[in-house]
């Protein structure tokens, strides 16, 4: 680790000002990604602006038919929240499957979405549900937010404040955990929002993406047979020491089938 200054601002404007006035400053949320990169000396921020105490970034509530979750909300809070479990159980289930208990006790939704790790779980939910990312400057639609591997629409110093999810009629997430890291080797989130089926895939490609072929097929008939034989094009999928692209292509279909199975065997999806 290199030396840095740690600051814990008391308000969102104060945090924003700190980030604006120090070019080398970085927001620190759960630290589950940021701190390991500091320890390995891969990043050298001048200041760490701890945003986890900011009231504006806290809280889980259903407001006007949407589920609003503060950016500093920890995974464990999403996983165990009765509000989330009732309004969007698939999201609670997703959060319960992130990493391990230590990671869930520290890591936050805002940190995960801002980081946009290509194997992170939350981006699939944000994209499939068509959620809106609210920052201290604007509202960004999920479609526009994720821009490929570790890239997002966030500008320097811009902070995610909360994420607003429409309440899906039906939704479920299925994940194949990476045997070493536990991240998604492939994760598929299926949501039906306002009658429209959306299928988002994480882990398999360089960034979260929608599997439109499956969306069309499921829109026509919402059953396993609709996607059971769909071929997933492996061309742009990840290949590495752990698995060839063809394996991930297979997982996209298998995880989609599992998510669908969850939806079909429960009233609202898990």
């Amino acid at each position: 680790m290199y030396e840095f200054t740690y600051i814990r601002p008391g308000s969102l404007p104060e945090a924003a000002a700190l980030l604006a006035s120090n070019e080398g400053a970085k927001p620190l949320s759960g630290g589950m990604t940021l701190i390991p990169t500091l320890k390995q000396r891969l990043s050298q921020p001048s200041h760490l602006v701890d945003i986890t105490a900011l009231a504006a970034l806290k809280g889980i509530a259903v407001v006007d038919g949407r589920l609003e979750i503060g950016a500093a909300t920890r995974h464990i809070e999403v996983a165990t929240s009765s509000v989330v479990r009732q309004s969007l159980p698939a999201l609670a289930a997703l959060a319960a499957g992130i990493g391990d208990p230590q990671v869930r006790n520290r890591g936050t939704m805002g940190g995960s979405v801002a980081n946009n790790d290509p194997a992170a779980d939350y981006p699939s939910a944000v994209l499939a549900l068509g959620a809106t990312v609210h920052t201290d400057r604007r509202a960004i639609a999920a479609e526009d937010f994720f821009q490929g591997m570790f890239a997002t629409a966030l500008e320097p110093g811009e902070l995610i404040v909360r994420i607003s999810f429409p309440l899906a009629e039906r939704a479920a997430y299925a994940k194949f955990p990476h045997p070493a890291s536990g991240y998604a080797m492939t994760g598929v989130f299926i949501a039906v929002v306002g009658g429209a089926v959306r299928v988002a895939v994480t882990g398999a490609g360089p960034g979260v993406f929608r599997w439109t072929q499956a969306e069309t097929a499921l829109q026509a008939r919402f059953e396993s047979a609709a996607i059971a034989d769909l071929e997933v094009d492996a061309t742009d999928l990840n290949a590495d020491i752990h698995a060839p692209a063809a394996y991930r292509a297979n997982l996209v279909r298998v995880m989609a089938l599992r998510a669908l199975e969850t939806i079909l065997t429960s009233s609202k999806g898990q």
Partner: protein
Amino acid sequence: MTFSRLEDRRFVTGAGRYVSDWNFPGQRHAAFLRADRAHARIVSIDIEAARAMPGVRAVITAADTAAAGFRSLPCAAPIPGKGGSALLRPERPVLAADVVRFVGECVVCVVADTAIAAQDAVEAIIVEYEDLPVVMTAEAAVAAGAPQLHPAIPGNVAIEFETGDPLAVAAAFEGAAHVVSLDLHNQRVVGSPMEPKGCLARHDPETGDYFVHVCTQGTTGMRAQLVATTGIPDEHVHIVAEDVGGGFGLRFNAYPEYSAIMLAARLTGAPVRWVASRSEVFLSDEHARGVSSRGEVALDAEGNFLAFRFNFLNDMGAYIAPTGPVVAVLSIRACLAGVYRVPAAVANVRLALTNSVPMAAYRGAGRPVISYMIERLVDQAATELGIDPVELRRRNLIPPTAMPWKTVNGLGYDSGDFPAVLDKALGLADWHGFAARRAEASARGHLRGIGLATFIESTGGGASPDEVEARFGDHGEITIHAVSHSHGQSHETAYAELLAAVLGLPRERFRLRNGDPAVRLAGNPTGGSRTMHGVGSALRVLADDIIAKGRELAARALEAASADIEFHDGVFRISGTDRSVSLDTLIERHAGGPERVFDTRSSARTGSTFPNGCHVAEVEINPATGVVSIERYTAVDDAGNLLNPTIVAGQMHGAIVQGAGQVLGEHAIYDLETGQFLTGSFMDYAMPKAVNVHGLVIADHPVPTPTNVLGVKGVGEAGVTGSLPALMNAILEALRPVGVTHFDMPATPARVWGAIGAARSGEGRRFAHA
């Protein structure tokens, strides 16, 4: 709260003392600059900027180690090579001098006031390299025209061993009705102990003494290697260690960093500490296995084994680690024909050098290489000949009536009842109920397989006798000193219970102290599953020696002849009377004072023992994802007498799961072109997880060995030796119905799924190591 092990309170309350828990006034911190490339000539090293940085006390390079008279790290072959040939020894400097040969090799050691300042200075060092071609696999290393690693080792082969009778084997193959062969790769793995390696050295300029706090499996081996490397006389090197957080073999040798830290302490005149990061552990802890092999078996028409022929090609890494050749050849020699009656066998073992971390011992230390080879070959023969794998084994097992057995290359097994062990395992595993379980799984679309391994181990004989010492304290506590260091094996409890049972004292009276420099003992480090038969035997002698002292004192106290005094349950009694005195009373009266009459040093010398077992694994594979799940696992082991069955079961659990780790996913991978290490963290290196293993059943069938007073055999590593072949046999058995005929470890989901797909589509049936 009560704990079943004496050491547990300390561990669970965070009171254990590891290397990073030692601190001394004025202590400095070290960091290492490591090679960032696999093979290169060092053109220049510029340390000026680093030296000038704040808080920097010393910047040490090969020039300094040379000035200090340091030599190459030691290595030796335990037996001569083929035709009496000697090991070609590579020069292995503490800090790279002219050439770096693997990513992670130490080049410069920086000492500063803080660990951060030392790291900062490391980044200010500029090394100019001239890249050399890399060679990353043993096969490539021995090929004609391969890049050469060491001038002393032309062709990159350090030695070739041969054990057995090649002519007898050739003759047997000649007349065989069937010949079955199998190529296998036993992949490179990282040991991953919980405690990263570390070292703290203090130097006393007055006396010339060094106190070296390190992670160690035993002080004697550590000290000898440091003495050999640094040239500092043995009497001036004192190894200090208390708790050691895991070892598995890779805390046996003295890493080059330790010698560098000793020099750092002398040059800076201050205690210097260095504790590796997890990244450094991945990059520079010894790795293990990494063996390519070919096995052949000749059989007669009835399925009797006529001969085994094995060829092993070992990837030894860039240098020969001190324990490397031992691991490569001794277990293969000792267990050459496994548990089978085979009239002829031969093994050839070649040690090749590659641009990678040196290879050394890791749980099993060679036994999981030979057991894996033999037991997979036997299954292959069963498949090709259409004989039931149990029946084929049964036909060839050495019968108990043939014990002691002289093995085909002139060594021997003292005891064992292999058929009884097999039968017990088959019964507990419900081998015959498998067909129904497979049918049930297949109705769910899953592939289910069962496999077994009947195997034997040879435990470490020990290079020296094992000495132990009891020191009686002023408050009734009895401190036991021994060399064999506990790094997770429950020595504290096992020793205390052994002594408590013989002496009739509560086990809480005993303390264990390994690695106390004030008590120099002869003995062997922990390794080769030998501690209980080695140190345990010495403790039994120690107990008898203490009783003998007590008997003399009791005779005086009771005014009787010592021959008339019997000892039972902690009490000395004049035979046939009720006149008695307890050992405890005598200790209280006599242990203190300047004579310390009860303080006792004893020793024992034992040879190898031959634990054996039959493990049965049952797995299920989901063909949609390739995920292998271990559904049942039955281990029946003959470890001789069991002193504490809970500890034994714990050792079996740990070792079986460690084997499962290698079978299911552990794989240390280097980039073949650049030599960069690709699996350098737990994000990429797949450790086994609790969810991978279900239904572990541990049972024993003890056949006490006559070779030591306790009748114990050794238990620390048998789980791996059994689980590699049993699990892989089960996995292949599950895959055979879809057409897969060969599969190398690791059975990762992607590889298993790939094998199923290739077999089904007719693309290929053999899924070999890439």
